[in-house]
């Protein structure tokens, strides 16, 4: 009986810890459409299942636009000081964590995660923001901020 009581207390404590952790640590997720509707300015949140439409500036800061995978009508501008991860390319999928800023009308991402290729699905994609130049080629100058690539 005493073991059952101790076991119950132990499992109860784990439950409380789990509850506190989830309450404190979980963050809201939005689709691009929801993000543009609600504009939760200043709140840390995630944007999942978004598709990279156009890479406006490939670095420092990185600037690009995303839409929902299924619906390209709503477009969100994203700015990030992070280096682009592997497989970060137009047409590819990206998940982001950060804050929406109403004043710049853009999502400021502090974490960018692209879909990792598993053995189950190969994802065909578009052009990469940075591709190593072929031997003999020179690197092209970075676009100034705000200028869209053709």
């Amino acid at each position, binding site marked *: 009986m005493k*073991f059952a009581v101790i*076991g119950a207390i*132990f*499992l109860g404590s*784990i439950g409380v*810890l*789990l509850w*506190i*952790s*989830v309450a*404190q*640590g*979980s*963050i*809201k*997720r*939005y689709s691009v459409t929801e993000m543009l509707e609600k504009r939760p300015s200043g709140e840390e949140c*995630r944007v*999942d*299942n978004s598709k990279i439409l156009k890479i406006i500036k*490939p*670095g*420092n800061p990185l600037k690009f636009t995303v839409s929902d995978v299924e619906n390209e009508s709503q477009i969100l501008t994203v700015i990030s000081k*992070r*280096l*682009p*991860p*592997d*497989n970060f*390319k137009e047409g590819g*999928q990206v*998940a982001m*964590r950060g804050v929406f800023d109403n004043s710049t009308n853009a999502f400021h991402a502090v974490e960018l*995660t*692209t*879909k*990792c*290729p*598993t*053995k*189950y*699905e*190969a*994802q*065909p*994609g*578009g*052009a*990469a923001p*940075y*591709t*190593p*130049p*072929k*031997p*003999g080629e020179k*690197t092209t*100058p*970075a676009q100034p901020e705000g200028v869209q690539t053709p």
Partner: protein
Amino acid sequence: MDVLEFGRELLFLAVCLTVVIFFLAVIGVLLKDRRYVVASRTGFYALLVLIGASSGCLIYGFMTGKYNIEYIYRYSERSLGGPFKFAGLWAGLDGSILFWTLLLCGFSAIAAFQNRWSARHPVGRRIEPYLYMVLSSVIFFFIYMSYSVNPFEEMPLDERLLRSPDGQVPDGHGLNPQLENYWMAIHPPTLYLGLVGFTIPFAFSMASLMAREMGDYWIKVTRRWTLIVWTFLTIGIILGGLWAYEMLGWGGYWAWDPVENASILPWFVGTAFLHSVMVQERRDMLKVWNIILIIATFFMTIVATYMTRSGVVESVHAFSEGDVGNRFIPFMIGVAIFGSFLIGLRMKYLKGTHKLESFFSREAAFFFNNLILVALCATVYFLSMYGKISHDWLMIREKTGIPVYTMVTTPLFLLLLLLTGLGPQFGWVKTSKSVFFRRVFWPTILGLVACIICLPHWISSDYVPAVMAPDGQGGTRFDPWVMVDKIHYYSTLLGIGFSVFIVATVGLELYRSVRSRVKGRGETWMDAPLRVVFGNNRRYGGYIVHIGMALLAVGVIWSSNFRVKEEMEIGFQKPAVIPGTPYVVEWVKHEDIPQKGIPYYGEKVDFVIKKLDHVHPVADAQGGGHDHSHAVPVATLQPEMRRYDKQEVTISIPAISRNFINDYYIHYAMRRPSQAGQGESIAFTIFVNPTVNWIWAGAVLMLLGGIFAALPTPGKRTGLIS
């Protein structure tokens, strides 16, 4: 008939054969005629031949370039190396299910072969036909799955014409470049061996219930099975981490992603089972609990398969989004209902002869070990599914990340570490407190010494202020909740202390046993340790696993809490300090990789890391005017950027320079004209990861310990049963 068509027909034959095997076993029971049971047993050998031949046909297709087959087209190409073509068997969803079936048939055939001997035992004879019923039912499901997803399906003609307008067989799309890594060729089979292997103990337990033979026969028969498959599962999980570390470029090995969690769920329950069966063997207790654990372990292997093949959880991994995964649901429900029903039906046979008597007993230690492991499994499963739960049930869309996992699992892992050291110090039934405290005295002192040694490093880090929170007026105030939130900071010292405690308890026990042999039997100090260890390989194999776990724990704790990560951009031959470290990084060379005999082109960048005689608190990018001429080179790294035109994929291959203290790790991001307008600059992420190699070393020890424990003990009967 084409070889690949033949492969599919073999699958159909195999489905039919499983039905025959099942009914032969049923008839054997009904007519009490052993000939039917023996025929059923022989059927498993035939099944292995059929599935082996079917898999061989698919491998033949990969090796000979049958790209008119959709599956082979998607995961192979002409320029792919032979081992990776072979690995195509498990590279995609369709083939991986066939591979799973092949391993299952292999394990079942071995179990059937072993039954040639165990069937001489009266209990073994009664269990045998039920075992074949359960195994053939599980195999039936997996062969049916293989048959229905059909890895042999030919590409439709219009699709082929689209890919190769001249009507010829096109070259394959090719394996994803990030999967072309030797660890990725080894990791899935190792993991699958672990996951599939748990079917055998499950089948034995169910067969025992069906035959009303609820002694510990099934546990004795499957003990070695369980140990070996658990070892494979452990190594498979760690190899997955090693692949992520070497290929993915984020400098880590575990991110609590659902696909990783899926593999560790059965590990938690399987580990609990491995410990609790010892209680049943020694004390005839926890019979119901053991049955529940082995059903849960098997169930979790199917849950893992379901999670990674159904798209039910969101992950950075691109899961399959078809309905294949959903076909596992009825099977899972069936396993749960069948298992629960049998336990309920046979409850009266499952009463143990003893009860837990004292907290100071090994049974109690195993009881708490089991509680922690099951709680870990439940917690990780809940957090993995939280995104779906919050969306479907709470009508909110939330996601948990690494901090939540860390906050919940850290105390549990710490308790587990402590119990790993404490458990073997208890005797069965009851241990006197004086004996117990005498046993743990020196290990405790050594653990405390380790904590004191680590204390200066801990204090010099920024962890101590983690008891303070901003007070909203520019200052800070004491806030105990911050301690909960930053629990992993405080876990560092405890974890190191507990790990040293584990090693010390094992060392001390070995010393006591050796001393007693030297004094009692007159053996030499050279001979006695070998005789102690090899004469009790099951116990010392377990201890080697415990030492491996301690080493792994130190590696994980230290590398997680003291890792340095910095995103930097530097010019050519302009060394820059990595902030907060005594290291300087310099870009010294750049070269293109000529596309000769390889399916990509790309570039290599050479970096040199040098060590200063002091820590630089802040960055001095682009040289910063500091003099680094006195710095001593400690590592040269050559990360690569590769572009695969065919797959339209660019990947950066990180470079790692390893030693037992630190890993220097660079992930190259891009080369571009310098912001200052002078020449080019390189953007990259650099990590200084301490003690990562302790993790791999710990894994090797766990592997060796698992194998050692599974070996037959010299001088004892090596048969399945005594």
